[in-house]
């Protein structure tokens, strides 16, 4: 079964070793410098996540995966958007660490036919748009 979902992927190369980036991802004080002004995280599977943003938005979540200095994943609940899954992946590179975030959002079961279906040429852009919305 595939899912219909929206997904966002972003990557950045940071001039710091993976261990240091890992601390920035898992230490609440460090997180409050970049993720949200107030962050609480219990770094263990099933651990609680709480964030409060500048505009007062609060997100709560749950840690799903902890692989020291390699991967961290949690689910959180965006206001009005249902749960989404956030996964950070750390890769050691020559200049430091490549940090990738993959956030996968609102999901519903679906058949894997959407991308394969033939759209009219008139709606080529629609196909493009749908392609971005579907994660196999």
């Amino acid at each position, binding site marked *: 079964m595939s899912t*219909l*979902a*929206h*997904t*966002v992927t*972003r990557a*950045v190369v*940071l*001039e*710091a070793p993976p261990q*240091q*980036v890992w601390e*920035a991802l898992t230490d609440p004080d*460090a997180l409050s*410098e*970049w*993720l949200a002004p107030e962050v609480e995280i219990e770094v263990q599977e099933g651990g609680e996540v709480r964030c409060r*943003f*500048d*505009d007062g*938005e609060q997100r709560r979540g749950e840690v799903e995966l902890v692989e020291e200095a390699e991967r961290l994943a949690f689910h959180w609940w*965006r*206001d*009005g*958007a*249902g749960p989404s899954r956030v996964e950070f992946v750390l890769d050691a590179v020559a200049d430091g660490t490549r*940090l990738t*975030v993959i*956030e996968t*959002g*609102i*999901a*519903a*079961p*679906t*058949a894997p*036919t*959407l991308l394969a*279906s*033939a*759209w*009219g040429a*008139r*709606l080529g*852009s*629609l196909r493009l*748009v*749908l392609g*971005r*919305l579907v994660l196999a």
Partner: protein
Amino acid sequence: MTAPDPTTAAGADVGAVFAALADPTRRHLVEALAAEPGATATGLAAELPISRQAVAKHLKLLDEAGLVSRRRRGREACFELQTHPLAGAVAWIDAVGAEWDESFGRLRAALGRRADA
């Protein structure tokens, strides 16, 4: 920055769009309307192994998600595809991406401060 409220992004309820497209029959109807703008429920039902009533029900859901518009033509309503709710869904995705870009910018700066300390 916080991403826009998904229920108002570009005037479309992104959740409703995803829910509407989660069903294979409704996706088939979207495709059929892309190929044949202005089709009627009867015409669409002729191409599918389901009743006209079932098609009408699916069209109603697509209508509620803003994905189709309807107008009267004689005794029957005919339907057109509306793509702007999809643009709203994409705008929401882009906003979430922009949020991560900003966060990573702050992370880079925070790590820089630590290296300097």
